[in-house]
């Protein structure tokens, strides 16, 4: 026998199912007015510092079909790389947003500011990025990934550097499609499968 470790096990994940919107963004699901306001409606408020950008994309399954029932959450730093709650963080940056794939087209849109680089615990910086969490019917445990930007210096980023097959790193990099506009598609499975994270 050995001494007993006083540890609990994390509660098991279950799929958010097809009606995750009812619980997380009820206005989107048609339950308008049940709450004073849905949470995560806006990543930024008017007057946020930095470049305002719009990222559009879709979540594709292994057959290349865009999911119509996916919900995403994003979390990011402000233009100077500080997260809400950190000293000096931009009060106009909420950092957190919720957005859903359109019920017809599967397209989603995130309007936010381009984040700054984020300091690492051991020194060094992470390239500007937005953390994403994706849930939907058929996804048993929410999928973590990140959006980086093709017009930023990503060379020193420790996460991107860990991806051995260089072409897979491309799946995490949003493509610039216009002034302040980016495209970021997520492929759940198969050709061009997005790198998902366990962090």
């Amino acid at each position, binding site marked *: 026998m050995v001494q007993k470790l*006083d*540890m*609990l*096990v*994390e*509660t*098991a*994940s*279950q*799929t*958010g*199912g097809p*009606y*995750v*919107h*009812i*619980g*997380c963004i009820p206005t989107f*699901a048609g*339950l308008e007015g*049940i*709450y004073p306001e849905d*949470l*995560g409606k806006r990543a930024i408020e008017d007057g946020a510092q930095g470049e305002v950008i719009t990222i559009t994309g879709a979540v594709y*399954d*292994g*057959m290349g*079909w865009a*999911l119509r029932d996916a919900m995403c959450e994003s*979390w*990011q*730093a402000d233009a100077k790389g500080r*997260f*809400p*709650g950190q000293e000096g963080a931009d009060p106009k940056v909420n*950092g*957190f947003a919720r957005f859903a794939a359109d019920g017809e087209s599967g397209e989603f849109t995130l309007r936010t500011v381009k984040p700054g680089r*984020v300091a*690492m*615990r051991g020194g060094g910086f992470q390239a500007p990025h937005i*953390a994403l*969490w994706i*849930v939907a*019917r*058929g*996804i*048993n*445990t929410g999928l*973590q990934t990140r959006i980086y930007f093709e017009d930023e210096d990503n060379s020193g980023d*420790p*996460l991107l550097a*860990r991806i051995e097959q260089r072409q897979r790193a491309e799946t995490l990099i949003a493509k610039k499609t216009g002034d302040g506009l980016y495209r970021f598609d997520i492929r*759940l*499975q*198969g050709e061009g*499968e*997005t790198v*998902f994270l*366990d*962090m």
Partner: protein
Amino acid sequence: MTDLGPLIPRNRAAHPAAYDPDYKTSVTRSPNLPLLSMESTLTEETGPRFGHGLLGALDNNLILNWTKGAAPAIGERILMHGRVMDELGRPVPHTLVEIWQANAGGRYRHVKDGYLAPLDPNFGGCGRTITDESGYYQFLTIRPGAYPWPNRANDWRPMHIHLSVFGHSFGQRLITQLYFEGDPLIDHCPIAATVKSRSQLDRLVAPLDMAHARPLDFLAYRFDVVLRGRRQTMFENKLEGM
């Protein structure tokens, strides 16, 4: 901001695998390639905080929140309550808990739900609250009905309440489902069965809690949630290579 240390790496064996052919939708929505495992960074270690100011007075009362108190929802009245803690047993205070569910007949208020059971005009189907100082939360709701769903030829979801919890860091984010003690459908459900460890599945089943039932009013079910913990040690802040 004090450095509370990295998140304890997720024990993936505690969770369902992405691919589970008995839950057919997972077949084309599960990554084939391994996840990229890395120690958490500030991005995963921070997360949104929600204050009480954002919440309405009836947000955690699903019996009344749809009609703003004008008329109660139909169904078996229950208190759903419990604690949110981390893997080290520490309470997770001031964190957002959201729930959503079908009505007493097993029907969701959603355009894509066309089940025969009627909508309850007095029931919306979502609630939210923030845990108190000791990580405790409670909802007043009705017990949802079981419902059939297109998967195998005759699959039914057991009575369940969907639950979303934040914790204090984005890497703790969790969505799960609460089942009810004694429901025979649990053992027939391919979604419940995505959790392969029996003890992990048992922990998704809320026991009847008569001590918290209110006579002549509601029954109670208890549901505790465990989120990932943080690994704080005195060696945490050393510089790389030292």
